[in-house]
């Protein structure tokens, strides 16, 4: 089991605190690097007030790379829609980051799920899946081939050298963000890693993981290598006292869930078969009586607890075939920075040793 951290870079209203949020996130990444976390991921989002101000994650990740020595940088995920990112620029920026980071790039791909973003760029919701499919097939070729030409559906280009080339050979590991059920199969068929970004139940994750591993055995890789890893998203707040951990963790989870739920999802306002679910990322805090208004409790599988509780949850994820867990550490700065850093340190001290290879 490997552990990563995952940044949305959410900024509380009145939306003037980006500097502090970015600095706090960089400090968390530096500490995670020192503590032995595997990857620091940053999402790409646009126009998502408060929820995520991570509109230029490649810049943030460059800063992470420059301030760390070992941790990998996860560009997760680049929106592969031409109105938002031209594929040539995607290839260039990713390769540049791989070179600058000394070959530490993990490269995630996505297509966006919100009308806020897709509508904001006036992209065609019906086309985003096809766009994404074209991107994941051409990007490895841009990175590998000395010169590249393309006549495609969403873009074309005459022969040119797309530069620089990535440091990793044949190219950085590629992933697909998985929110909607079924996308894990899209990932498997193309030989791409399954980057879970929506919290799923144990049973749902087990089903997805089983089907992913089954399907990837017969994949036709779009790149020069197969990435068959499965990662999931989780929420981390670790404290010696379970009660405090639950109380603070629920505040963090509730804030994230509210901000996420308030995005305007494409499925909600635009009739299309291209978006079959709302793609909410967070589980709602469980209700003790099962109804709105009842007292909340930590949903099963979330890492909001004391070290012992978290070890149990991670072992369960491990038992169903998850290779990596990426943790959100905060939402809209609802947890003070020192609490976040203390939580990371406690996790590294008390939880990580249970998952180190012998």
């Amino acid at each position, binding site marked *: 089991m490997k552990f990563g951290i995952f940044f949305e870079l959410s900024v509380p*209203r009145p939306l003037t605190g980006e500097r502090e949020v970015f600095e706090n996130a960089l400090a968390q990444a530096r500490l995670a690097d020192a503590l032995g976390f595997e990857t620091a991921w940053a999402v790409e989002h646009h126009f998502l007030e408060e929820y995520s101000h991570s509109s230029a994650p490649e810049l943030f990740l460059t800063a992470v790379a420059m301030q760390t020595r070992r941790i990998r940088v996860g560009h997760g995920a680049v929106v592969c829609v031409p109105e938002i990112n031209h594929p040539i620029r995607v290839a260039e920026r990713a390769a540049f980051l791989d070179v600058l980071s000394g070959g530490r790039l993990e490269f995630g791909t996505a297509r966006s799920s919100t009308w*806020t973003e897709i509508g904001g760029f006036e992209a065609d919701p019906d086309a985003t899946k096809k766009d994404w499919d074209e991107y994941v097939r051409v990007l490895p070729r841009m990175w590998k081939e000395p010169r590249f030409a393309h006549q495609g559906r969403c873009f074309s280009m005459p022969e040119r050298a797309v530069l620089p080339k990535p440091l990793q050979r044949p190219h950085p590991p590629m992933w697909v963000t998985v929110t909607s059920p079924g996308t894990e199969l899209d990932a498997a068929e193309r030989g791409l890693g399954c980057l879970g970004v929506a919290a799923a139940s144990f049973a749902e994750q087990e089903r997805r993981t089983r089907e992913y591993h089954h399907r990837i055995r017969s994949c036709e890789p779009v790149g020069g290598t197969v990435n068959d890893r499965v990662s999931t998203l989780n929420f981390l707040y670790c404290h010696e006292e379970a009660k405090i951990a639950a109380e603070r963790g629920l505040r963090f989870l509730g804030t994230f869930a*509210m901000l996420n739920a308030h995005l305007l999802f494409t499925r909600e306002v635009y009739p299309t078969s291209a978006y079959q679910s709302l793609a909410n990322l967070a589980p709602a805090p469980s209700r003790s009586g099962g109804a709105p*208004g009842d007292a909340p409790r930590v949903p099963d599988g979330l890492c909001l607890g004391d070290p012992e509780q978290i070890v149990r949850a991670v072992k369960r994820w491990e038992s169903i075939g998850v290779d990596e867990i990426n943790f959100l550490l905060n939402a809209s700065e609802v947890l003070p920075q020192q609490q976040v850093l203390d939580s990371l340190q406690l996790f590294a001290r008390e939880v990580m040793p249970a998952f180190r290879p012998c």
Partner: protein
Amino acid sequence: MLIGSADPQALAAHVATLQGFDGEPQKLPCVETLQLAFEFESAGMEALLPPALHPTLPPVVTWLVQRVDSSPWGSFQLAQCRIECRSGLRPRGFLRAGAIDNPEAGVQLAARWGYSLRGAEIRLDRAYDRIRALVSSGGRTLLDLELRDPAPVRGEDVFYVASMNLAHTPRGLRLVQVDPEFEVERAERGRPVLRHFEAAEWNAGGVRPRHPVSASFTLGAVTLPALRYVCRPDVLAFEGSERVG
């Protein structure tokens, strides 16, 4: 986090009175539903919602115009103007105002599901190249919109959010959650065109539609459900939700 800022008591001047929470579901066998969605100017969007609800970004107004061929109260046509919003984590549409062309049906919809409706003339016309809805009162056009160039889509591609209808209820002023079940037999979508919208007539004076989002049309049975939840309008849904069914 953005939260509605409208005064519930001020909104209460226009709302229906719900008779009780124990009504039976009502299936309406053949309903045509035209829905248009437009983004509108965000300035003042919080003032369109009570404190229980949160606006979306961007803010979106939807209009539903329905033709119901048969019901226990006869055939009727219904038009609604709603603001897309969130109740806690759930997507909802806050009913600002509605109109109906059958007074008996209007009384029933108000008493059993909390719909606040005025009398109006409503036409829903289907042509080969467009589906048009026109709502007028006393010769004055209140709403004129259409779906242009309809093309078939799958029924499950069309998404309807539950309504939050502010109403006087036996528990006091409450948002009544109404989540109709659509059994779609046929669905189309097309280009949304808004020809005329008298916002003030829909109790939506701050709504200035700017950017078209979508237009859809469905045909099929719609079941108005038994009520399950209501919510106090003055506090967040996590605190104010109450089970009634």
